[in-house]
């Protein structure tokens, strides 16, 4: 790539990396490598952000993310995590309906009460 193209891609870089060709070429190469890698990472990061948001939204209603998704899978509800997170933020009543659907299908792992003394053997 010729120098003009490099400098065009090096806009906003720190120090000599935006002015001097030797340094700019290195930084631009690195920047392009990062952008290649991060186009793939972005998909992962976004999904993890949606899952965190859905988790927070369902915990407001007393259900955690794992049990919620298990219930949805059982009911064959095909909504993806992107849409579910947007629902949790912008449409709280619809989201509560979804949580109830999931809860009726899969009430979650109820903690087994510990039996004390003789009743544990019986």
């Amino acid at each position, binding site marked *: 790539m010729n120098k003009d193209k490099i400098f065009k891609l090096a806009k906003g870089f720190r120090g000599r990396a935006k002015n001097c060709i030797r340094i700019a070429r290195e930084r631009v190469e690195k920047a392009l490598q990062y952008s290649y890698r991060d186009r793939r990472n972005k998909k992962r990061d*976004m999904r993890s*952000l*949606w899952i*965190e*948001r*859905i988790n*927070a*939204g369902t*915990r*407001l*209603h007393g259900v955690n993310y794992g049990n919620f998704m298990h219930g949805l899978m059982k*009911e064959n509800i*095909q*909504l993806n995590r*992107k*849409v579910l*997170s*947007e*629902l*949790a*933020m*912008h*449409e*709280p*009543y*619809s*989201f*509560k*309906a*979804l949580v*109830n*659907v999931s809860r009726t299908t899969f009430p979650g792992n109820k903690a087994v009460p510990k039996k004390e003394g003789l009743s544990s053997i019986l």
Partner: protein
Amino acid sequence: MATTIPTSAFIATPHRCSTGRSSAIWVQKAQFSASSSSLGVSLSLKRPSLRLVSVRCEANGAGMPVIPAQERWMYEESEINGPDIWNKTWYPKAADHVNTEKTWYIVDASDKILGRMASTIANYIRGKNLATYTPSVDMGAYVIVINAEKVAVSGQKRSQKLYRRHSGRPGGMKIETFDQLQKRIPERIVEHAVRGMLPKGRLGRTLFTHLKVYKGSEHPHQAQKPIPLPIRDKRIQFVKK
């Protein structure tokens, strides 16, 4: 019933008057009007997302101009229909995290296990309990801790847990036990615990300033009307054996 949510309602792009998207939602709201009181407690009604929905309806009536079909090619999709909220992940605007409108919580630290309490505090300060959580933005709340000198630890930690700091010079390591530090500066124990649980970085340092720890049971934040921090951990109370 609730199972028959039409999925088409969620995939449809928002129309100018947003009736297409909201029509299914109005049905849901009617079904849940009876239980709205229970919903009103768990949802924070100050959430900006609710404001987002109502503003769009108003904007479509007054702010958004009606563009005739012949001229629609001249404009971008966001100018015709409004911002696309279903295909782009929401990112908070400045108005969504104004510090003056954040909730304030208060915790009484007497006889609470240090780490368990610090964990819930850090979650609330970071904003991980909200559906609008964003890792790069400070969406969390403020937390006040009172009676910090009465915080409890289990086992032998009271005499064995060490707090270390280094002045930077050779031989400058200072070591203190939990007991000694509690006598000297009791607030530092809770601050140290919560700081270790917050992210480290520029944002983490700003989040840390949202924690207010006090020694006695008095605090100067009555004007912020703090509400008690909801703690769901069942093993947080210190039980003397």
